Protein backbone atom coordinates (compact mmCIF):
# COMPACT_ATOMS: atom_id res chain seq x y z
CA UNK A 1 0.00 0.00 0.00
CA UNK A 2 1.30 3.41 -0.89
CA UNK A 3 0.93 5.72 2.10
CA UNK A 4 2.03 9.12 0.79
CA UNK A 5 4.24 11.11 -1.55
CA UNK A 6 7.63 11.32 0.15
CA UNK A 7 9.94 12.89 -2.41
CA UNK A 8 9.59 15.37 -5.23
CA UNK A 9 12.33 16.86 -7.39
CA UNK A 10 12.82 20.53 -8.14
CA UNK A 11 15.55 21.33 -10.65
CA UNK A 12 17.73 24.27 -9.66
CA UNK A 13 20.70 26.12 -11.10
CA UNK A 14 22.81 26.10 -7.91
CA UNK A 15 22.18 23.90 -4.89
CA UNK A 16 23.64 26.31 -2.31
CA UNK A 17 21.68 29.27 -3.62
CA UNK A 18 18.51 27.20 -3.93
CA UNK A 19 18.85 25.80 -0.41
CA UNK A 20 19.28 29.34 0.92
CA UNK A 21 16.23 30.55 -0.96
CA UNK A 22 13.94 27.70 0.09
CA UNK A 23 15.00 27.94 3.75
CA UNK A 24 15.67 31.67 4.32
CA UNK A 25 13.02 33.11 2.02
CA UNK A 26 10.29 30.47 1.81
CA UNK A 27 10.60 29.08 5.33
CA UNK A 28 11.41 25.48 4.48
CA UNK A 29 13.83 23.57 6.69
CA UNK A 30 17.07 22.00 5.54
CA UNK A 31 16.96 18.21 5.65
CA UNK A 32 19.68 16.13 4.01
CA UNK A 33 22.89 17.47 2.49
CA UNK A 34 25.18 14.66 1.47
CA UNK A 35 27.96 14.32 -1.08
CA UNK A 36 29.01 11.23 -2.95
CA UNK A 37 32.05 12.14 -4.99
CA UNK A 38 30.93 15.10 -7.09
CA UNK A 39 27.29 14.16 -6.71
CA UNK A 40 25.45 16.15 -4.06
CA UNK A 41 22.05 15.32 -2.63
CA UNK A 42 20.28 18.27 -1.05
CA UNK A 43 16.77 18.15 0.34
CA UNK A 44 14.51 20.61 2.10
CA UNK A 45 11.06 20.18 3.53
CA UNK A 46 8.19 22.09 4.99
CA UNK A 47 8.17 22.11 8.82
CA UNK A 48 4.54 20.90 8.78
CA UNK A 49 5.29 18.08 6.35
CA UNK A 50 7.84 15.74 7.87
CA UNK A 51 6.79 13.05 5.41
CA UNK A 52 7.66 15.01 2.26
CA UNK A 53 11.14 15.96 1.10
CA UNK A 54 11.93 18.18 -1.85
CA UNK A 55 15.21 17.36 -3.51
CA UNK A 56 16.97 20.34 -5.07
CA UNK A 57 18.70 18.81 -8.05
CA UNK A 58 21.00 20.35 -10.61
CA UNK A 59 20.35 19.13 -14.15
CA UNK A 60 22.84 16.34 -14.86
CA UNK A 61 23.07 12.55 -14.78
CA UNK A 62 20.90 10.48 -14.85
CA UNK A 63 19.62 12.96 -17.47
CA UNK A 64 21.67 12.83 -20.64
CA UNK A 65 23.55 15.96 -21.70
CA UNK A 66 20.91 17.09 -24.13
CA UNK A 67 18.10 16.76 -21.60
CA UNK A 68 20.16 18.45 -18.88
CA UNK A 69 20.84 21.36 -21.19
CA UNK A 70 17.16 21.56 -22.08
CA UNK A 71 16.28 21.75 -18.36
CA UNK A 72 18.90 24.48 -17.82
CA UNK A 73 17.40 26.47 -20.66
CA UNK A 74 13.86 25.91 -19.42
CA UNK A 75 14.90 27.25 -16.00
CA UNK A 76 16.61 30.20 -17.62
CA UNK A 77 13.77 31.11 -19.94
CA UNK A 78 11.12 30.65 -17.26
CA UNK A 79 9.12 27.74 -18.63
CA UNK A 80 10.01 25.27 -15.87
CA UNK A 81 7.47 24.70 -13.14
CA UNK A 82 8.33 23.88 -9.53
CA UNK A 83 5.93 23.38 -6.65
CA UNK A 84 2.34 24.24 -5.92
CA UNK A 85 2.12 25.73 -2.44
CA UNK A 86 -0.82 26.45 -0.20
CA UNK A 87 -0.87 29.75 1.69
CA UNK A 88 -3.16 31.06 4.42
CA UNK A 89 -3.20 34.63 3.09
CA UNK A 90 -2.09 35.02 -0.53
CA UNK A 91 -1.98 38.82 -0.56
CA UNK A 92 0.04 39.01 2.64
CA UNK A 93 2.45 36.31 1.45
CA UNK A 94 2.80 38.17 -1.84
CA UNK A 95 3.63 41.38 -0.01
CA UNK A 96 6.09 39.69 2.35
CA UNK A 97 7.90 37.85 -0.44
CA UNK A 98 7.90 40.86 -2.76
CA UNK A 99 9.50 42.91 0.00
CA UNK A 100 12.25 40.29 0.12
CA UNK A 101 12.89 40.63 -3.60
CA UNK A 102 10.88 37.68 -4.88
CA UNK A 103 9.45 38.25 -8.36
CA UNK A 104 5.90 37.45 -9.38
CA UNK A 105 4.78 36.83 -12.96
CA UNK A 106 1.24 36.92 -11.58
CA UNK A 107 0.15 38.97 -8.57
CA UNK A 108 -2.65 37.56 -6.37
CA UNK A 109 -5.70 36.97 -8.57
CA UNK A 110 -9.18 35.71 -7.81
CA UNK A 111 -9.91 32.25 -9.14
CA UNK A 112 -12.98 30.07 -8.75
CA UNK A 113 -11.05 28.01 -6.20
CA UNK A 114 -9.38 30.81 -4.28
CA UNK A 115 -6.71 33.47 -4.54
CA UNK A 116 -3.68 32.52 -6.58
CA UNK A 117 -0.29 34.06 -7.30
CA UNK A 118 2.64 32.83 -9.38
CA UNK A 119 6.19 33.50 -8.19
CA UNK A 120 9.72 32.68 -9.33
CA UNK A 121 12.28 30.91 -7.22
CA UNK A 122 15.90 32.02 -7.64
CA UNK A 123 16.54 29.32 -10.23
CA UNK A 124 13.75 30.54 -12.50
CA UNK A 125 11.09 27.94 -11.64
CA UNK A 126 7.53 29.19 -11.40
CA UNK A 127 5.79 28.25 -8.18
CA UNK A 128 2.12 28.74 -7.57
CA UNK A 129 0.70 29.98 -4.27
CA UNK A 130 -2.96 29.25 -3.61
CA UNK A 131 -5.12 30.43 -0.76
CA UNK A 132 -8.13 28.15 -1.11
CA UNK A 133 -11.64 29.45 -0.70
CA UNK A 134 -12.73 28.86 2.86
CA UNK A 135 -14.25 25.43 3.25
CA UNK A 136 -12.17 23.87 0.48
Amino acid at each position, binding site marked *: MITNVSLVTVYVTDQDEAKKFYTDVLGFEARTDAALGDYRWVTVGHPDHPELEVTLMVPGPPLDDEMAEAVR*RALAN*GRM*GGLGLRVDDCKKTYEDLSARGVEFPQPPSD*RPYGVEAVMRDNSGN*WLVLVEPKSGE
Partner: protein
Amino acid sequence: MTYWTSMSTPTDLLPHLRRARDLIDNRYADDLDLEIIAQRAGVSKYHFIRSFSAAYGQTPAQYLAHRRIERAQDLLRATNLTVTEVCMLVGYTSLGSFSAKFRSLVGETPSAFQERYGGKGVPHIPGCYIFMRGLQERAISEKPSAASGH
Protein backbone atom coordinates in the same frame (compact mmCIF):
# COMPACT_ATOMS: atom_id res chain seq x y z
CA MET B 1 29.58 29.63 -19.69
CA THR B 2 27.58 30.50 -22.79
CA TYR B 3 25.73 27.85 -24.72
CA TRP B 4 24.60 28.43 -28.26
CA THR B 5 21.92 26.13 -29.56
CA SER B 6 19.76 25.97 -32.63
CA MET B 7 17.53 28.50 -30.91
CA SER B 8 20.51 30.86 -31.07
CA THR B 9 19.85 32.60 -27.76
CA PRO B 10 22.74 32.24 -25.29
CA THR B 11 21.62 30.55 -22.05
CA ASP B 12 23.20 33.44 -20.12
CA LEU B 13 20.83 35.89 -21.74
CA LEU B 14 17.68 33.87 -21.04
CA PRO B 15 17.18 34.90 -17.38
CA HIS B 16 17.20 38.54 -18.51
CA LEU B 17 14.59 37.82 -21.15
CA ARG B 18 12.64 35.84 -18.58
CA ARG B 19 12.46 38.89 -16.32
CA ALA B 20 11.15 40.97 -19.16
CA ARG B 21 8.56 38.31 -19.99
CA ASP B 22 7.54 38.13 -16.32
CA LEU B 23 7.08 41.91 -16.40
CA ILE B 24 4.72 41.56 -19.37
CA ASP B 25 2.85 38.79 -17.53
CA ASN B 26 2.60 40.84 -14.35
CA ARG B 27 1.63 44.14 -15.92
CA TYR B 28 -0.16 43.14 -19.15
CA ALA B 29 -3.10 45.35 -18.21
CA ASP B 30 -0.95 48.48 -18.02
CA ASP B 31 0.06 50.76 -20.85
CA LEU B 32 3.34 48.89 -21.30
CA ASP B 33 6.03 50.59 -23.31
CA LEU B 34 8.57 48.49 -25.19
CA GLU B 35 11.32 50.73 -23.80
CA ILE B 36 10.39 49.76 -20.23
CA ILE B 37 10.22 46.07 -21.08
CA ALA B 38 13.61 46.13 -22.80
CA GLN B 39 15.05 47.99 -19.83
CA ARG B 40 13.95 45.16 -17.58
CA ALA B 41 16.04 42.80 -19.69
CA GLY B 42 18.92 45.26 -19.59
CA VAL B 43 19.56 45.20 -23.32
CA SER B 44 18.94 47.61 -26.17
CA LYS B 45 15.49 47.69 -27.71
CA TYR B 46 16.69 46.28 -31.00
CA HIS B 47 18.67 43.47 -29.40
CA PHE B 48 15.74 42.78 -27.07
CA ILE B 49 13.17 42.30 -29.83
CA ARG B 50 15.52 40.00 -31.74
CA SER B 51 16.60 37.86 -28.80
CA PHE B 52 13.14 37.70 -27.21
CA SER B 53 11.68 36.52 -30.51
CA ALA B 54 14.42 33.91 -30.89
CA ALA B 55 13.84 32.62 -27.35
CA TYR B 56 10.06 32.57 -27.27
CA GLY B 57 9.04 32.42 -30.92
CA GLN B 58 7.09 35.66 -30.70
CA THR B 59 7.96 39.33 -30.66
CA PRO B 60 7.38 41.06 -27.29
CA ALA B 61 4.34 42.83 -28.78
CA GLN B 62 2.87 39.54 -29.99
CA TYR B 63 3.52 37.97 -26.60
CA LEU B 64 1.76 40.87 -24.85
CA ALA B 65 -1.23 40.59 -27.22
CA HIS B 66 -1.46 36.82 -26.64
CA ARG B 67 -1.28 37.33 -22.89
CA ARG B 68 -4.05 39.94 -22.97
CA ILE B 69 -6.33 37.79 -25.12
CA GLU B 70 -5.59 34.71 -23.00
CA ARG B 71 -6.55 36.69 -19.87
CA ALA B 72 -9.64 37.97 -21.65
CA GLN B 73 -10.68 34.37 -22.41
CA ASP B 74 -10.22 33.53 -18.76
CA LEU B 75 -12.46 36.40 -17.69
CA LEU B 76 -15.07 35.64 -20.35
CA ARG B 77 -15.18 32.00 -19.25
CA ALA B 78 -15.22 32.58 -15.53
CA THR B 79 -16.98 35.87 -14.80
CA ASN B 80 -20.15 37.76 -15.60
CA LEU B 81 -18.28 40.80 -16.91
CA THR B 82 -19.36 42.35 -20.18
CA VAL B 83 -17.10 42.25 -23.23
CA THR B 84 -16.40 45.97 -22.81
CA GLU B 85 -15.41 45.52 -19.17
CA VAL B 86 -13.13 42.63 -20.08
CA CYS B 87 -11.59 44.69 -22.88
CA MET B 88 -10.64 47.45 -20.44
CA LEU B 89 -9.48 45.03 -17.74
CA VAL B 90 -6.91 43.36 -19.97
CA GLY B 91 -5.35 46.62 -21.13
CA TYR B 92 -7.14 47.64 -24.31
CA THR B 93 -8.52 51.14 -24.58
CA SER B 94 -10.58 50.52 -27.70
CA LEU B 95 -13.27 47.88 -28.06
CA GLY B 96 -12.64 47.81 -31.80
CA SER B 97 -8.98 46.87 -31.56
CA PHE B 98 -9.70 44.39 -28.74
CA SER B 99 -12.40 42.61 -30.75
CA ALA B 100 -10.27 42.56 -33.89
CA LYS B 101 -7.27 41.11 -32.04
CA PHE B 102 -9.47 38.58 -30.25
CA ARG B 103 -11.02 37.47 -33.53
CA SER B 104 -7.71 37.16 -35.31
CA LEU B 105 -6.16 35.06 -32.52
CA VAL B 106 -9.15 33.01 -31.39
CA GLY B 107 -11.20 32.77 -34.56
CA GLU B 108 -14.45 34.06 -33.14
CA THR B 109 -15.72 37.23 -31.51
CA PRO B 110 -15.44 37.78 -27.75
CA SER B 111 -19.26 37.65 -27.50
CA ALA B 112 -19.48 34.34 -29.35
CA PHE B 113 -16.72 32.93 -27.15
CA GLN B 114 -18.55 34.11 -24.02
CA GLU B 115 -21.83 32.61 -25.19
CA ARG B 116 -20.28 29.18 -25.53
CA TYR B 117 -19.42 29.30 -21.85
CA GLY B 118 -22.60 30.95 -20.63
CA GLY B 119 -23.88 29.09 -17.58
CA LYS B 120 -21.63 26.10 -18.17
CA GLY B 121 -19.09 26.96 -15.54
CA VAL B 122 -15.33 26.83 -15.69
CA PRO B 123 -13.14 23.85 -16.50
CA HIS B 124 -11.46 22.69 -13.32
CA ILE B 125 -7.88 23.34 -14.34
CA PRO B 126 -5.80 25.48 -11.98
CA GLY B 127 -5.58 28.97 -13.42
CA CYS B 128 -1.82 29.07 -12.98
CA TYR B 129 -1.38 26.26 -15.50
CA ILE B 130 -3.59 28.04 -17.97
CA PHE B 131 -1.64 31.23 -17.26
CA MET B 132 1.76 29.61 -17.73
CA ARG B 133 0.70 27.77 -20.88
CA GLY B 134 -0.54 30.96 -22.46
CA LEU B 135 -3.10 31.27 -25.21
CA GLN B 136 -4.36 27.85 -26.25
CA GLU B 137 -8.01 27.85 -26.95
CA ARG B 138 -8.93 28.73 -30.49
CA ALA B 139 -12.22 28.13 -32.20
CA ILE B 140 -10.40 27.39 -35.43
CA SER B 141 -8.91 24.14 -34.17
CA GLU B 142 -11.72 23.20 -31.82
CA LYS B 143 -14.16 20.35 -32.24
CA PRO B 144 -17.74 21.53 -31.78
CA SER B 145 -18.59 18.65 -29.42
CA ALA B 146 -15.59 19.22 -27.14
CA ALA B 147 -17.51 21.08 -24.45
CA SER B 148 -20.52 18.76 -24.31
CA GLY B 149 -18.97 16.30 -21.86
CA HIS B 150 -18.87 18.78 -18.96
